[in-house]
């Protein structure tokens, strides 16, 4: 198989095409459990062959959304359409979607092969075909040697692959993955992420994945939906979510970010001047967004876009603040400098450790300058 995943992914953007037909559509879906609203009037279109992530903290409604698509819960109001068909009243065992459970939910009394064959048997597939499909699935997840093992004779990573093979065996239109990699250790998780992407691409499936791990969502997804309290806060590509978060919630949830509160002191097109209490000069940014003059706003900038130096930078176009080095975190590949500004706020700057620094030139309690270009940060209004 040729590894042309990269370019294909770049041109894959059906959500930008106004004529593209949604494959999965949530239409004003609300789900209430008693007084608790798990999903709140939510609408979203997911396209064929998309790798779509639902990201959010526990209790944000992401799992409920997935369970409604699988048929384990029915929406209180609203509709769910799959390929144009309303799924209301269709029981889980008649839906062309398969789910990979967080606990894997492997049948403990059946062998690996029987687990994978279970769904095929329900469809009344002829025995030789079942055997062939099971062999194919075992090969896909590299577990040929483990066909006759019972689930409790497998390691965590192997169980995860059996669960994946079982969910894929029926060639579902949509595969739902509920925290699929949660139980794996970091190394295995990274490996499996890329395996999942390959499998999704190879089989041309639509993947809907629920996760609270932002790294996982960033790596694998075509688009990410960040959820909070049963609503979609932002739906966008990983890069957009990271570079152009639409709120403090999203900015804070994905990656690390510095947020400074201030007021818009001047506005010229997209360029805004923001004065923040305790800073002698206003911050200038080219990404004013929807902020209006006089608004209270939050200036957000990623730590890796903030440069730290011991001398004031010469370029007058840069935003510069000075402060005291409060803390240094050495993470191996990068170092994080936490600098205390005159107004008491802490601002972080990360520096890639490109050279092998035995002695750090910047130390604790040093007076340091933080600088960033005008286009590096953005204003958030909520």
């Amino acid at each position: 198989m040729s590894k042309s995943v990269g370019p294909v992914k770049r041109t894959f953007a059906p959500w930008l095409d106004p004529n593209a037909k949604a494959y999965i559509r949530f239409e004003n879906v609300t789900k209430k459990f008693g007084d608790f609203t798990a999903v709140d009037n939510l609408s979203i279109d997911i396209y064929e062959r998309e790798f779509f992530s639902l990201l959010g903290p526990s209790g944000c409604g992401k799992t409920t959304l997935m369970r409604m698509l699988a048929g384990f819960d029915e929406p209180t109001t609203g509709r769910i359409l799959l390929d144009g068909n309303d799924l209301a009243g269709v029981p889980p065992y008649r839906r062309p979607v398969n789910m990979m459970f967080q606990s894997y939910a492997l049948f403990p009394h059946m062998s690996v092969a029987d687990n994978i064959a279970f769904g095929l048997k329900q469809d009344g597939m002829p025995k030789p075909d079942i055997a062939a499909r099971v062999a194919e699935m075992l090969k896909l997840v590299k577990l040929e040697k483990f066909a006759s093992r019972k689930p409790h004779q497998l390691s965590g990573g192997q169980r995860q692959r059996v669960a994946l093979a079982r969910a894929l065996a029926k060639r579902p239109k949509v595969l739902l993955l509920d925290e699929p990699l949660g139980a794996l250790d970091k190394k295995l998780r990274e490996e499996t992420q890329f395996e999942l992407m390959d499998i999704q691409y190879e089989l041309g499936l639509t993947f809907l994945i629920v996760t609270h791990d932002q790294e996982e969502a960033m790596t694998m997804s075509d688009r990410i939906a960040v959820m909070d309290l049963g609503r979609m806060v932002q739906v966008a590509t990983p890069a957009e979510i990271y570079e152009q978060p639409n709120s403090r919630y999203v900015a804070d949830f994905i990656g690390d970010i510095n947020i400074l509160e201030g007021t818009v002191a001047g506005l010229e097109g997209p360029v805004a001047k923001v004065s923040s209490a305790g800073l002698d000069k206003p911050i200038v940014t080219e990404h004013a967004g929807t902020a209006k003059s006089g608004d209270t706003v939050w200036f957000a900038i990623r730590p890796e876009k903030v440069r730290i130096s011991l001398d004031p930078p010469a370029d007058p176009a840069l935003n510069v603040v000075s402060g005291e080095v409060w803390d240094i975190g050495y993470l191996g590949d990068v170092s994080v400098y936490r600098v205390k500004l005159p107004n008491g706020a802490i601002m972080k700057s990360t520096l890639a450790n490109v050279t092998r620094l035995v002695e750090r030139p910047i130390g604790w309690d040093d007076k340091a300058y933080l600088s960033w270009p005008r286009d590096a940060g953005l204003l958030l209004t909520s």
Partner: protein
Amino acid sequence: MSNKLSWFNVTSLTLGFAFLYIPILLLVIFSFNESRLVTVWGGFSTKWYGEMIRNQALMDAAWVTIRVSFLSATIATVLGTLAAITMTRYARFPGRLLFSGMIYAPLVMPEVITGLSLLLLFVAMDFSRGFWTVTIAHVTLTMCFVAVVVQSRLVTFDRSLEEAAQDLGCPPAKTFFAITLPLILPAVVAGWMLAFTLSLDDLVIASFNTGPGATTLPIKIYSQVRLGVTPEINAVCTVMIAVVALGVIAASLYTKRVEVERERAERAAVAQAG
């Protein structure tokens, strides 16, 4: 904490075991008594076992008991399992609390009351007493025990297994037989065995609800004892003790073995993965 047995431990252990087992031990010993007098040792003999087998009335009673126990345990297991499923699965239905309370009530209900109330019911219904009334009465007695045992297993049952089966295209009823039942089977079997033994040795309820031709072994033994204890009765009781003890030991050995094998397999898997 010291592992050594202090004199206090030894004494309490001895007293405890003595209290529990001396009567049973005496009964077993005297079943091998040559003498006709139960309390006087006349040398070793197995003749009372022979007598026991030749005693047609006793054998008939044993056969009735086995049939009643088998049938009532089976019915009680089906009903008890259904009740357990209802109580664990359907968390909210009107009267759930009342229902679960009423399931447990027979556990603590004096047997005399259960027996009498059933008798009154059968009389009111004009149901002729005999084999079937004893069986039904025993179902009433043992069903709650099965429900308790099965429910304790269902509480820890991973519901996502059933959801996974349905997700793969298996309708609910089929899911129960393909996934749920095989996994809770040990608890169901344990419930059945409990029901069987309870029914086997029940005297009170059986004597209230029995009729002609349906004398169970405990009733038979009780009525014979009233005429005087013979070593024959000791022999019957010894056989019953042996049967029950063997059953319990076999069941615990089986569960132990399954556990050990499972643990070994898990360790092997972990070792291999690492």
